[in-house]
């Protein structure tokens, strides 16, 4: 009898753990990187841009707190056009809400690679960028350098 009761207790605990685990999993951000590429830089360029989409498929928001690249200084910028003037604005601590995305595209949000060696950013090269999120931690994304095909 006691044995049977212990088994039931054991199963109940397992069930509770499973429910808790599922609730916890549902309340995590899920960061996904899609279609990232970098614009091939002219031979004399000191900077270039990268574009793509960062999706948060999870149920809670996450914040991009740092971006790193061994091949260049890198920042998340946004080009804003006001009264015909384009202005680049540095973005820090970008929040990506649950089930939403941050679209990086020309004349909007973009990764700005500065102080580059153009040979490293020529067509076909691979560049690794590390994105650090407050909750999700660090993700490495490999990006291909492609010709400007706007």
């Amino acid at each position, binding site marked *: 009898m006691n044995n049977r009761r212990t088994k039931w207790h054991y199963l109940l605990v397992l069930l509770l753990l499973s429910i808790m685990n599922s609730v916890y999993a549902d309340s995590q951000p899920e960061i996904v990187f899609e279609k990232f590429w970098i*614009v091939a830089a*002219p*031979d*004399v*360029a*000191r*900077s*270039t*841009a990268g574009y793509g989409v960062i999706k948060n498929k999870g149920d809670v928001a996450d914040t991009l707190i740092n971006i790193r690249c*061994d*091949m*260049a*200084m890198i920042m998340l*910028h946004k*080009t804003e*056009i006001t009264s*015909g*003037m*384009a*202005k*680049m604005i*540095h973005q820090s601590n970008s929040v990506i809400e649950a089930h939403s995305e941050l679209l990086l595209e*020309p*004349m909007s949000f*973009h990764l*700005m*690679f*500065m*102080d580059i*060696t153009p040979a490293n950013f020529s067509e076909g090269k691979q560049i690794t960028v590390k994105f650090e999120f407050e909750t999700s931690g660090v993700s490495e994304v490999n990006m291909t350098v492609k010709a*400007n*095909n*706007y």
Partner: protein
Amino acid sequence: MLKKLVILLFISLLSVQISHAEGDELPLFSGIGGSFSAVDADGKAVEFSDFEGQVVVLSFGYTNCADICPFTLGYLARLYSKLTEEEQTKVQIIFVTIDPEYDTPGHLKQFIGHFNSDFVGLSGSKEQIDYIVSLFQAKYQKLSVLNTVPTKNIRRVTPKLFSDESDEEDKASLYSHSVTLYLIDKSGFTRSLEYTGTPVDEFVSKIRGLINE
């Protein structure tokens, strides 16, 4: 025979009407544009009147711009490729730097050549550039971030793999600037203000209209 003549007459009337429709739609912007002097990518002095007889698309920018300037030059390269070879000889794409200190003629030539070797990059003294900017009622402003900080000094705080470190200071700066594309007719008058977002076919149609004027 008569039937053929009627068809030919109809086609020629139609083509005249189309070319007029393209050109006639464009007003003349008084007070935007005019004559100026600059330095071309070979270091030679040029006058804007040197381009008389050609339809000109003029834009402002700088080579250390990572997003909108390469995007605009890529857009202009696509636009230019839509023109026939004969039309291309009647059109000049001009990119005027707003950072003449950094964008020397040789530097500009290599940068512009990445997009299309037919494009003309214009530089000059700061006074010359400021005059051209004011002629076209454009604006530019150095951004405070990284304003006077040499990029070499910024590099020191970010670990990076470089094999070709140079002691020469690189004073590339960041700017905000006008993004208008000025469509100028063969007589040097500004006829339309476009943007990189203008559908390419629509822009090409306007250029053709001015070529046929």
